């Protein structure tokens, strides 16, 4: 009975020692986080100031990335996206410095691995952001083109195109993070191959006459366009 009591006491004592030993590390991490947030916020504020100074007295210049993000439906545009990105880069860099300052040990190893993952995570986020942009632009283009052409499936078609593109970019992001790489490749191969085969069968075999009429009409339209086109 005494052995058991001694054992429990020793275990609690070791736990308390271990807990006390990580408190400085946690404090360092918390301090790093606070400094990181401050640095990130400063970076974002600086970027905003530079941008406002650059645009003083004039309207938004509509730079290419800005137009891209707005076209993607991200209302804040480039200024806001760049601000958010610089903020998180600031936080990540300061956290990495903080982790490096820790005593060597298991905790440091784990945190180093986590912090080392952050740049990859940011890059994957950037890939998904680009995907959102491309998907948004494609959705708008398909929607406008289809509505203006009077096609009844405009909204569904636009959503479908957007989902396909976004799925592709999310898969790229996951691949960049190294998540389920082999499953992703297999899934995309099956999906892509299946789609091409289905379209080929549907258009070339199932709708052979429609395909012929479509191609003939297309060729005729091109010939007519050349004939009547004028400046």
């Amino acid at each position: 009975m005494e052995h058991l009591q001694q054992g429990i006491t020793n275990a609690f004592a070791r736990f308390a020692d271990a807990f006390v030993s990580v408190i400085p590390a946690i404090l360092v991490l918390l301090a790093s986080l606070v400094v990181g947030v401050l640095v990130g916020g400063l970076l974002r504020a600086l970027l905003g100031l530079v941008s406002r100074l650059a645009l003083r007295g004039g309207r938004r210049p509509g730079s290419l990335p800005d137009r891209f993000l707005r076209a993607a439906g991200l209302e804040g545009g480039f200024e806001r996206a760049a601000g958010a990105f610089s903020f998180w880069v600031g936080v990540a860099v300061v956290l990495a410095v903080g982790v490096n300052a820790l005593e060597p040990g298991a905790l440091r190893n784990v945190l180093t691995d986590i912090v080392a993952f952050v740049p990859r995570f940011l890059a994957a986020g950037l890939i998904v952001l680009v995907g959102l942009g491309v998907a948004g632009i494609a959705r708008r283009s398909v929607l406008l083109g289809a509505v203006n052409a009077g096609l009844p499936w405009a909204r569904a078609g636009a959503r479908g195109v957007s989902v396909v593109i976004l799925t592709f970019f999310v898969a790229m992001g996951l691949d960049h993070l190294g998540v389920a790489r082999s499953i992703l490749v297999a899934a995309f191969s099956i999906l892509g191959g299946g789609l091409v085969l289905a379209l080929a069968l549907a258009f070339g075999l199932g709708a052979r006459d429609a395909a012929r009429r479509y191609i003939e009409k297309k060729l005729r339209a091109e010939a007519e366009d050349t004939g009547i086109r004028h400046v």
Partner: protein
Amino acid sequence: MRALPALEGAVAERLKRIGKADVLVGIPSFNNERTVGHVVRAVAAGLAKHFPDVHAVLVNSDGGSTDRTREIVERTEHGSLEEILVDAAPPPAARIVTPYVGLPGKGSALRTIFRIAAELDVKACCVVDSDLRSITPGWIELLVSPVLRHGYEFVSPLYSRHRYDGTITNTIVYPMTRALYGKRIRQPIGGDFGFSGGLAERFLEYDRWDGPVARYGIDIFMTTTALAEGMKPCQAFLGAKLHDPKDPGADLQPMMVEVVSTLFELMERYEESWIGVAGSEAIPLFGFSHAVGLEPVPVKVERLASIFRQATEDLASLWGSFLSEQSITSLREGAATRPDVTLPDDVWVRVLFEAAAGWRDQRLPPETLIKALVPLYLGKVASFIAETRDGTDEEAEARLDTLAAVFERNKDMLRELWRAGSR
């Protein structure tokens, strides 16, 4: 410093030999072998009959035609002058056939013509389309004489058109231009214009020839520049314009994007010129007005209405980027009416004014914004047809005058929207 379009060595050499000229007639072309011969014959006869003592030059600015267009322009003569009551044939006008540089389109073609006009220091110019079937020698007199002999600087065409031909003009360009610049130019994008050599030089000062002005935007660019820069304008009645009319439901998107982009862009450029203008005034008209038998334009009204109705369901969130909630609600109400859609004038005016302000504030990419306007324009056309299908041509024209008056009356709204964006 302005950048001038390049000229071929042989053309520059030819211009040196010609030296100066009084009148220049420009014909932009691209694969127009079927019609360009008639146009050249009419121009040559017009110059011989109406300007026999004037040193004239005919310039064809071609976009790389792969048919016989250029050959036809070089070889076509004016034909029998006796038939048009000319006794003594004057020396033929010098003829220059040249390719143009820049984006393919009418604007780039005309830019080269402006350059040649400036090089030759001409007093008066006119440009006519190469797909015309109804041009006569009298057109040249009507487009050139007001400039050469009456002190005007810009001559806009006035055609007899079927009430459903030129719907972008009728519902957008005419009423907007009239409300903005205060002059009643009925066909601001007619395509055939007369102008002074000085105005040709002003056109060359423009610095964005890599945009819509290089294409379909050129016509509204010429008209707006003339009005905004205070040139003395007039109109010339040319009768019917027979060419290939476009069904408003078919392939109008690129044209509308280029025309409306240019209209909005020039609003920004010439804000000082239009912001203080109130009301509008008629401008002098040359030519003898007469009734003309017109080719009907087969418009598929049900298709226009169907696109408008579908858009109120599918595009409402996109419209929300630049239209007010009030406008979107009114559009939905108009789309719900049966059997025809209705788009009242005051709603249409507010939509266009909000779109102009939204374009200026870049609420959407420019092309996207204007493409989002296409179904609304189709709805307005459908609504106009529903109102006028049983009336006379005069009643339809009066209806368009009423629409233009609503634009003028609501100009304060445009000023407010425009200024709110610039704050």
